[in-house]
């Protein structure tokens, strides 16, 4: 679809086909409902451990992944359910992972913080803040060397931007002109610590200057704005012009994790951001531009509800791992035969 500028028409409407836009809305609802379902399961004691919900950040996850194809890759974070769904994961297998079942993406070994979907190019959530940044650069190095044409989109939070790994990763991506897009989801806090208290600059995008790469700030609750910024950045990456830094300004409605008492922010602040809910906003845009009708939106939401309910039921009925298999998958069973056979690290039919 030609990208001709039309006044007041958002980029996404101009740039994507209606079914793509419909799919994006569907994914936003799916993320919201997934997070609510996860929260509910946790409250009922069905899930153990902890979890980091991305309610309020749906536009950021879905918008950033819109420019990507299946063979493009992402690295995700501890707050990764949205990224995972945006990149096309099956919510039933995600819930199965939460429930610790063999049917889960990690066969119950990883849980919320390690869901990956390598076949769909999702190299995985990460329990280590900043851990995915150099890994994304490595994926981009593979893409460049192997000529796959893939772009890697690297999600990370505002808190991660103060890790040394951020600095080292962005510098290497820049000097080697690698096809990677750094997508900082700035939700104003790393756990309890605001960016004002943790970060010397007002906008994380400003740090792009230290790596001679473009840095842009966008409204992270505006799906179209995110998609546009990542389209630009990934086009640049595909053209061999190197990495970009996109800062998506958004907000998490829930606490950092289940034990958060929200002492570091005000109810008013939370309420103000909840009023800027990215989902109805995008739905309204679609309705306003005639992509969907209001009843169609409601149907999409209902569809998502049903899909989540089915996913939870699937997960509950899943198979518990056999404790005798505790040490299985620590190592790869049989050494790969020869060096010229296909023994790539990706064993799931994924593009390399």
């Amino acid at each position, binding site marked *: 679809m030609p990208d001709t500028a039309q006044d007041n028409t958002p980029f996404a409407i101009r740039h994507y086909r209606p079914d793509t836009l419909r799919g994006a809305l569907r994914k936003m609802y799916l993320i919201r409902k997934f997070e609510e379902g996860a929260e509910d399961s946790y409250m009922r004691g069905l899930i153990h451990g902890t979890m980091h919900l991305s309610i309020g950040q749906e536009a950021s996850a879905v918008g950033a992944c819109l420019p990507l194809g299946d063979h493009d890759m992402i690295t995700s974070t501890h707050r990764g359910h949205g990224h995972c769904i945006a990149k096309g994961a099956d919510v039933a297998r995600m819930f199965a992972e939460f429930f610790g079942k063999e049917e889960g993406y990690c066969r119950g*070994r990883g*849980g919320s913080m*390690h869901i990956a979907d390598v076949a769909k190019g999702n190299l995985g959530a990460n329990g280590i803040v900043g851990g995915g940044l150099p890994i994304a650069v490595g994926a981009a190095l593979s893409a460049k060397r192997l000529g796959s044409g893939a772009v890697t989109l690297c999600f990370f939070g505002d808190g991660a931007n103060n*890790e040394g790994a951020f600095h080292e990763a962005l510098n290497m991506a820049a000097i080697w002109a690698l096809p990677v897009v750094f997508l900082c989801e700035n939700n104003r806090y790393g756990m309890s610590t605001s960016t004002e208290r943790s970060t010397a600059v007002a906008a994380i995008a400003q740090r792009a200057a230290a790596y001679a790469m473009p840095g842009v700030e966008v409204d992270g609750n505006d799906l179209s704005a995110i998609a546009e910024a990542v389209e630009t950045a990934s086009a640049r990456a595909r053209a061999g012009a190197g990495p970009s830094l996109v800062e998506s300004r958004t907000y998490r409605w829930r606490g950092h994790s289940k034990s958060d008492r929200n002492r570091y922010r005000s109810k008013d602040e939370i309420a103000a951001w909840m009023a800027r809910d990215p989902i109805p906003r995008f739905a309204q845009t679609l309705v306003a531009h005639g992509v969907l009708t209001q009843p169609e939106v409601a149907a999409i939401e209902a569809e998502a509800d049903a899909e989540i309910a089915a996913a939870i039921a699937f997960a509950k009925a899943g198979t518990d791992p056999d*404790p005798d298999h*505790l*040490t299985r998958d*620590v190592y790869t069973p049989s050494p790969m035969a020869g060096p010229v056979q296909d023994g790539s690290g990706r064993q799931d039919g994924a593009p390399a």
Partner: protein
Amino acid sequence: MKMDAPAEAALRELSFAEAIREAMDIALAEDPRVVLMGEDIGVYGGAFQVTGDLVRKYGEERVIDTPISELGGAGVAVGAALTGLRPIFEFQFSDFATLAMEQIVNQAAKLRYMLGGAVSVPLVMRFPAGSGTGAAAQHSQSLEAWFAHVPGLKVVQPATPADAKGLLLAALDDPDPVMIFEHKLLYKTKGAVPEGRYTTPIGQAALCREGTDLTIVATSLMVPKALAAASLLAGEGIAAEVIDLRTIRPIDRDTVLASVRKTGRLLCVYEGVKTLGLGAEISAMVAESDAFDFLDAPIIRLGGAESPIPYNPALEKAAVPQQADIEAAARGLARGAV
């Protein structure tokens, strides 16, 4: 339980986390050089609520929330310790110390030696460690053996609230870097804790239970498990002696060897990965000592599985020694069926 506090001090029940907080409170009140550093230790109160409300009492200048910068934060603590402050640095999870090994091992541990004794680095670091919280492989490790391998560091692993407080105050009095490994599942456990200031000496194990049939040397969360197992075994006529190592660098050799000379049988129980975990050192230390001649059976180790910690709760439990495992191993050892 051996108690190093003044005999007259009043005892109260405190949780392990509260005992640590009380120690930090005492130190902050007594000594203006003491500062706390870490991620979300201020208004959040710490990921495990160990620092709690201390920021209200001492302010943000002394209870310092760092950015998420473990290497830099640890290095700032090293530099501060070198120049007059007494930092207590909290890693949010011990797993994240993997980012800071450079500053801990190359700098803090070695500076005094490399500078020919011209300086000391009075640094205290706290590492919430261990599995059992369902947080999976990157939030559940027990890496204390790495640190116990490093000359220049002292490493402690309290198992009771009283020791958690006493060892933290001892660490602060110590001129050298002291690493404190705190098992996350211990934070909510309760125990009698003396009021006021006292120290638990670094380098001294505690003989928690006497017995004649075998010696169980345990660390951290494995101490209450070993004690529970020993109680149960007593009913079966097996008298297990239980030693809480408390300090893992330097190890209290005398206490362990004396016990093994008496019982002739040794079981080491620790949560870290079995291979090259703490029990390897305890076993080797005994096997090369004169206590070797007193051994009536192989030295048995119960350590963590040779795998990352899995998420699924049943697998997670299976990955580290449980009370039943200790009982079974002790039974086997005592009855000679190894």
